[in-house]
């Protein structure tokens, strides 16, 4: 007697169901279209990066990153003041926007909750994210530069900080909201108070997200042009002073040099563009690494 006999109404697994052929074709076509769309979306991104590398790679060397900017007619390296300015201004902006933004986010999620004040602030932060950066530059120009009578790095940093802060506030708010309530309860159940619970349990749990959000805000600010053109002026010698004298930045130099009729200046614009892309890229990679490091330490 065979143990494995099929019942008489058994339909073989190999017999296709009606309509299955059409479904398979549609699935293949849809998959193909999605893959195609992905590559189409990739084209501009890759093209921009490749073209900037092609045009700018020859410029990039140590002298280019440190030397003063020569006059437009001259050929040769020199974007040092812009590299210094970008680092100085973005750094100062981050020092202002990140601590304030994180604290603001903590207030919104941990203390404000669904109260009226918190809802108003959350709404304003959302509106501020949508304010065009040129408007922010104009605002700082009117209220700071026109008062101090002289453009400087700090005014630029203020404008960038105004752009970064709403991003940091919102990321922090959202990351804190993702921290499970059970973790907070676990801390409270041990006799921990609210401030301690936030400091020692909630913030560390949300840290990877908050840090990566903050670094992405930094990367975005580093690439801003419009608010800086209004606020920092222009120089061709490196100026490490935050408050005294005008300054410059990579983005502003790209704008100025690319419009210049002289080929030497245009080449330097490409070099500056590549430098800026690299700086932003480094920050993005850093954000990923920090996030991965913190999440691994929490779960491994």
């Amino acid at each position, binding site marked *: 007697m065979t143990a494995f006999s099929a019942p008489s109404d058994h339909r073989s697994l190999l017999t296709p169901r009606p309509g299955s052929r059409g479904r398979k074709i549609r699935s293949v076509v849809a998959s193909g279209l999605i893959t195609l769309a992905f590559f189409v979306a990739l084209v501009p991104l890759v093209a921009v990066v490749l073209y900037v590398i092609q045009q700018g790679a020859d410029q990039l060397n140590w002298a280019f990153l440190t030397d003063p900017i020569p006059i437009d007619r001259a050929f040769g390296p020199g974007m040092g003041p812009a590299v210094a300015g970008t680092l100085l201004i973005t750094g100062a902006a981050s020092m202002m926007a990140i601590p304030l933004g994180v604290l603001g986010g903590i207030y919104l999620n941990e203390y404000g*909750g669904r109260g009226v004040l918190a809802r108003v602030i959350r709404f304003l932060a959302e509106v501020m994210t949508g304010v065009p950066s040129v408007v922010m530059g104009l605002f700082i120009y009117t209220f700071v530069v026109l008062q101090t009578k002289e453009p400087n790095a700090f005014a630029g940093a203020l404008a960038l900080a105004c752009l970064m802060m709403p991003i940091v506030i919102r990321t922090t708010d959202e990351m804190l909201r993702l921290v*499970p309530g*059970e*973790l*907070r*309860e*676990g*801390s*409270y*159940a*041990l*006799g*921990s*108070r609210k401030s*301690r619970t936030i400091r*020692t*349990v909630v913030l*560390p*749990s949300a840290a990877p997200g908050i840090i990566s959000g903050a670094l992405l805000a930094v990367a975005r600010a580093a690439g801003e042009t419009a608010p800086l053109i209004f606020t920092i002026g222009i120089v061709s010698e490196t100026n490490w002073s935050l408050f005294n004298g005008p300054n410059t930045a990579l983005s502003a130099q790209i704008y100025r040099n690319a419009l210049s009729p002289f080929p030497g200046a245009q080449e330097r614009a490409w070099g500056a563009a590549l430098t800026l892309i690299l700086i932003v890229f480094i920050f993005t990679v850093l954000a990923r690494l920090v996030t991965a490091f913190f999440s691994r*330490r*929490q*779960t*491994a």
Partner: protein
Amino acid sequence: MTMTEDTTANVALVTTGVETPIPQVSTPDESLPPEPPEEGRELVFQVRDLEVRYSGHTAVREVDLDIAANEITAFIGPSGCGKTTVLRVLNRMHDITPGAKVFGRVTYHGEDLYSSKVDSAEVRRRIGMVFQKPNPFPKTIFDNVAYGPKINGRKRSEMADIVEHALTRAALWDEVKDKLKHSGLSLSGGQQQRLCIARAIAVEPDVVLMDEPCSALDPIATARIEDLMEELKREFTIVIVTHNMQQAARVSDRTAFFTAEVDDEGRRVGRLVEFDVTEKLFTAPSDARTEGYITGRFG
């Protein structure tokens, strides 16, 4: 009284001193005569006419309970009967639940637990809690256990001993002693729950509240935690919420049976039906609803 020292220590909790103990002879609910305190039974909690509302809706009402030291008290009942709600009353966990309000009288060693002079953080340092879902902090195993003692101001130099002692009592030390620097989240579910128990007992609480501590665990891990409770009972008073009647019958000394009844407005409201010595409640329940539940006729 076996725990005189503890009782006097607790006087420091409120500046006004000990409140008048609740008389044992009268309760508002005549259908539930109070258990006369047996010889040597030290009462930790006395709950009278408790009602809890969430955003104005009553979740549970008319609860009277006496919970004794070094016993395991189990709360059983169908979903929505308010057993977890009552448990969370005992360490003032509702203070951090928006919209939750507690009415009635709850005393802890004779002191009003809900007096405005009592600090809820201090309450939770003495009355620890283990949750339904294991919730270790995203920190190392060591830091998870050291978290509570640190809050209590224990010295860094004592910490290694405290952590080892707590993990040993939670029957987890042998499994984790070589990986104290690993994250608490790297452990299995059952280990995570024992880590949470170690975390709770590391602060040397007086009471450990357990909210369905085994519901997310497999039978082997459950058995380990049940054995552990039997051990811990010697040092701590344990209150456990469980929806597993066999578990209540196995581990507890006394059992409270809750049920949910539909009120005039059609809302489900939890009530305490019967509270008795576990053996009696399971073999000779005095209320028909208890009998119906434990024999599987409803719930």
